[in-house]
């Protein structure tokens, strides 16, 4: 039996509430499965489990503020109760085959949701339908028949988002967003950054004429839904450059820097109603333009509509922000600890640019870098920016 704990989704997160279980007691889970929705100061976040086993007990009550590290659920991992010997521990840590033999002993609970206390009194006629407790409660409140809904949760279970998709008030209930709490969380993280990280800043202007011309031609041959945004070129050039400059990609913890093997690129997304969130695009340097566009589209949708995963909020190894077409000319980023660098792109503006000894009016963007002086210096930072500029000048190679 092992414990599934409330994860920390950032250096400054202290507590969260479970607002919905996406699994029931008796459900089999695999590493990476979504198991619960947490209400945090970053909004509602889907949290994954990184164990294989069977949910033995859902411990955390719904809608109660719990500290980071609190036990949310007990998971029967199928391993023998670990004896206090290093051998047993090693065996348990090994990626053992899924313990299929235990499944026979698990009662069929597909018609039951848990915890029992949460859905007492709301079982009603639709209790034969597999649904999360929150979905059950909301459906009862709104007089919605669960059987009429198509579930998108584990095993086809109806979850609150499915009611929201039907136009119910569940969306607001599930994706409730507290602007004050988010502002406080941003303030705490940025204060820590300014307190601990000796930032230095660099910038250079980059002419985007070749990149935008290439993009226009590429998009002319594409259907509406397959077109790329300029931001994707910036993202791709940044990811490739960061892979070549490991001093800017990784985490600084316990007085030392550990470079990351992959570029998990955090992309800053402004939220409507204020605040921002920077979920990670995993291994961004290995994704082509189309894959990056798809990832960006998906992240923006989930950042604003709900459904970001806990791992996406904690795995970024570096962050990039792009102010967009109506943004300011340049940005001086504040590094998100424990990361050690952040890149910024201002708005693309038409500016005088000298090319082949002549002045022309061309699209220009100001690229900036904030980096951690404990890990790198201005010379390396300059080379990083130059590398990004060079890649953007040769868009056909991106």
């Amino acid at each position, binding site marked *: 039996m092992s414990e599934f704990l409330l994860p920390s989704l950032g250096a400054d997160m202290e507590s969260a509430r479970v607002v919905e279980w996406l699994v029931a007691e008796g459900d089999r889970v695999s590493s990476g499965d979504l198991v619960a929705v947490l209400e945090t100061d970053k909004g509602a976040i889907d949290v994954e489990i990184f164990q294989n086993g069977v949910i033995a007990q859902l411990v955390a009550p719904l809608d109660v503020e719990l500290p980071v590290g609190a036990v949310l659920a007990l998971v029967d991992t199928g391993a023998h109760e670990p004896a206090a010997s290093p051998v047993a521990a090693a065996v348990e840590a090994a990626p053992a085959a899924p313990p299929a033999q235990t499944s026979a002993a698990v009662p069929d609970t597909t018609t039951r949701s848990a915890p029992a206390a949460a859905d007492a009194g709301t079982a009603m006629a639709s209790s034969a339908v597999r649904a999360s407790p929150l979905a059950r409660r909301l459906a009862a409140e709104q007089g919605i028949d669960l059987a009429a809904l198509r579930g998108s949760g584990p095993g086809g279970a109806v979850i609150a988002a499915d009611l929201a998709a039907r136009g119910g008030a569940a969306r607001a209930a599930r994706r409730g967003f507290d602007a004050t709490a988010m502002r406080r969380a941003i303030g705490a993280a940025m204060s820590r950054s300014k307190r601990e990280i000796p930032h230095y800043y660099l910038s250079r202007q980059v002419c985007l004429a070749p990149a935008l011309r290439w993009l226009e031609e590429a998009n002319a041959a594409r259907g*509406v839904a397959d077109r790329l*945004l300029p*931001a994707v070129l910036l993202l791709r050039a940044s990811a490739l450059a960061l892979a070549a400059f490991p001093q800017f990609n990784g985490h600084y913890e316990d007085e030392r820097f550990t470079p990351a093997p992959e570029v998990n690129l955090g992309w800053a997304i402004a939220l409507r109603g204020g605040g921002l969130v920077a979920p990670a695009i995993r291994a961004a340097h290995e994704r082509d333009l189309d894959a990056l566009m798809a990832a960006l589209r998906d992240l923006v949708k989930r950042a604003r509509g709900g459904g970001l995963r806990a791992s996406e909020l904690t795995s970024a190894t570096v962050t990039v922000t792009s102010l*967009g077409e109506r943004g300011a000319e340049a940005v001086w980023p504040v590094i998100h600890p424990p990361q050690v660098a952040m890149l910024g792109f201002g708005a693309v503006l038409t500016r005088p640019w000298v090319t082949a000894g002549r002045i022309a009016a061309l699209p220009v963007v100001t690229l900036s870098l904030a980096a951690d002086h404990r890990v790198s210096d201005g010379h390396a930072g300059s080379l990083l920016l130059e590398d990004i500029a060079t890649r953007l000048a040769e868009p056909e190679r991106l």
Partner: protein
Amino acid sequence: MDINDTRALLERILADIAPEAALGEVGDDEDLRQALDLDSMDFLNVVVGLHEATAVEIPEADYPRLFTLTGMAAYLP
């Protein structure tokens, strides 16, 4: 497309992209991107929504004609 139909169509598309956008308060000739704080991803999603609803192929060069409700109504069949 009739201006009222255009408004109703855009309302439906925005429900997915920016559910809190108050299209009712936006004038026919206002720039939707400014009035509703739409970024380039949002606007691309609006264009995709218009394409899906009307089957009109909308080349990128025509995007500026879709910046206002009046422009959209004139552009869509």
